[in-house]
């Protein structure tokens, strides 16, 4: 007589600090994927403040974003998003990592990202044909690496760190810095300030591991 043990998958709940990381990546990815809609603006406007007892820069930036969200309307958000990131010809601010961490053609970030996505078993959803180095997609990849997804757990910190340092640490920092300096930026300057504060925390935390 033989018995076969059934495979049991145990999903441990994410610790709160890891859930918060995943949530920040999700939010930044959403804000960069498309203009903020009414539901998102309303939710941000109603969001709780982050107490300054944590990271003061993040608390300040969060307050700025929530206040701006309460004053922003969807048409203005859409117009600013289009103007900043999608303008005809050369957009004032590139929303693609390759612009900031560009390498020789054979080693372009988009080529390297194909390998990373394959290694992680990830790919874009059907019907979404944005190039691989769109920052919205990169933040979404980090969310999945941190929080996992149906059928997969969190990625090891070493993998999260490698992806972060390869594509976001400098690239996203320079992208958000460019947004803060863009004359056309108003609402998205607040988004960028949250992004910069969060990335600084992430970069420092990875140094501790």
């Amino acid at each position: 007589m033989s018995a076969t043990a059934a495979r049991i998958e145990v999903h441990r709940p994410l610790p709160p600090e890891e859930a918060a990381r995943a949530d920040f990546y999700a939010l930044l990815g959403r804000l960069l994927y498309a203009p903020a809609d009414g539901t998102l603006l309303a939710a941000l406007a109603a969001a709780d403040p982050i107490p300054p007892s944590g990271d003061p820069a993040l608390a300040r930036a969060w307050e700025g974003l929530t206040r701006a969200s309460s004053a922003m309307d969807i048409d203005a958000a859409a117009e600013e998003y289009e103007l900043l990131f999608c303008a005809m010809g050369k957009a004032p601010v590139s929303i693609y990592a390759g612009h900031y961490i560009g390498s020789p053609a054979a080693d372009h970030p988009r080529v390297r990202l194909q390998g990373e996505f394959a290694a992680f078993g990830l790919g874009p959803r059907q019907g979404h044909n944005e190039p691989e180095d769109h920052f919205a997609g990169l933040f979404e990849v980090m969310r999945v690496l941190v929080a996992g997804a149906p059928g997969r757990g969190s990625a090891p910190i070493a993998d999260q760190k490698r992806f972060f340092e390869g594509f976001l640490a400098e690239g996203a920092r320079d992208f958000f810095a460019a947004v803060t300096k863009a004359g056309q930026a108003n609402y998205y300057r607040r988004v960028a300030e949250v992004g910069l504060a969060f990335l600084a925390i992430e970069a420092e935390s990875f140094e501790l591991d």
Partner: protein
Amino acid sequence: MKTKSTSRRNFLIAAGAGSAGAVAAVATLRKPGAGTKTAAGAAKGDGYHVSEHIQKYYKTTEV
């Protein structure tokens, strides 16, 4: 003895104090269809694909 991962965890807890509740409510508002598909979907053949647009881009990177 304090381990490195404990230090990292303590740092994240301290730096993000209070942020979890604030951001959680809005993070659920991800755009339907945005982002990535995991290996389960890819195995069905509807995961990552190289679009015509991306193919054209790769042509420009050839040396």
